């Protein structure tokens, strides 16, 4: 029997923890990228009256997509930790819209993986956020 591909394993894992709370799911992936999404929830609002969506779910979705992009590229199941994450908020996300995050892992070294991510809420040509995140492989050498 072929050993299971780590990215397929990631996709088939039942959502748990914060991924489950936000409803994060896989959309598509390639050799060095992954696109994840999360449906809008009234719990994402900063102000129920104004309909202003918090950027917090954007941060969590980016973290998830970037981690998935690394596994899509390396095809390895290695424990890793987010080192840093920088997000530019180009505009506020619209309420009622599903958030999409497409992350690309553009470089992997023995210890560190570098990613970029774009977030939109329906139209990829009208992004909500751009992000850059780096990750550290935590296993002992």
């Amino acid at each position, binding site marked *: 029997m072929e050993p299971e591909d780590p990215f397929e394993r990631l996709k088939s894992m039942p959502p748990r923890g914060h991924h489950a709370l936000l409803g994060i799911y896989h959309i598509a992936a390639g050799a060095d990228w992954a696109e994840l999404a999360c449906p809008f929830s*009234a*719990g994402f609002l900063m102000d129920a009256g104004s309909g202003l969506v918090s950027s917090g*779910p954007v941060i969590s979705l980016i973290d998830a997509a970037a981690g998935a992009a690394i596994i899509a590229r390396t095809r390895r199941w290695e424990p890793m930790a987010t080192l840093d*994450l*920088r997000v530019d908020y180009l505009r506020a996300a619209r309420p009622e819209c599903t958030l999409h995050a497409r992350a690309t892992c553009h470089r992997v070294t023995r210890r560190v993986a570098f990613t970029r991510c774009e977030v939109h809420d329906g139209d990829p040509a009208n992004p909500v956020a751009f992000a850059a995140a780096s990750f550290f492989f935590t296993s002992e050498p």
Partner: protein
Amino acid sequence: MIERAPYAQLLGVREWTDAQGNAGLFMPASPVLEGRQGFLYGGVIGSLLELACLAALAGESEVAGERPRPINITIDFLRGGLMVESYAQARIVRLGKRVVNVDATCWQSDRESPIATGRMHILRA
């Protein structure tokens, strides 16, 4: 104020103040905040820092009634967050007329060993 936001309630974030007049946010551990088994999700830590920055700005009397918008945030993750209560406190570095620069720290059992720090630019609008 921040703790009334639906998103803060989703995370279980509450406000605290101490006898010295310091203020910040705390977030009890919960299974819905977990990432890797046994560890707080990184995105949740970042979101707590962001809420702390927004709360610090909301605490400025001269910006009451404003609707600040995040411009960007940079988060450094220093340690894995354990599944215990987390605290965050932010400091306004510069309160400009249009842009505010804020930094924030997140810690758990030991304030001297922060698990993450963040910096944020916020547009006053």
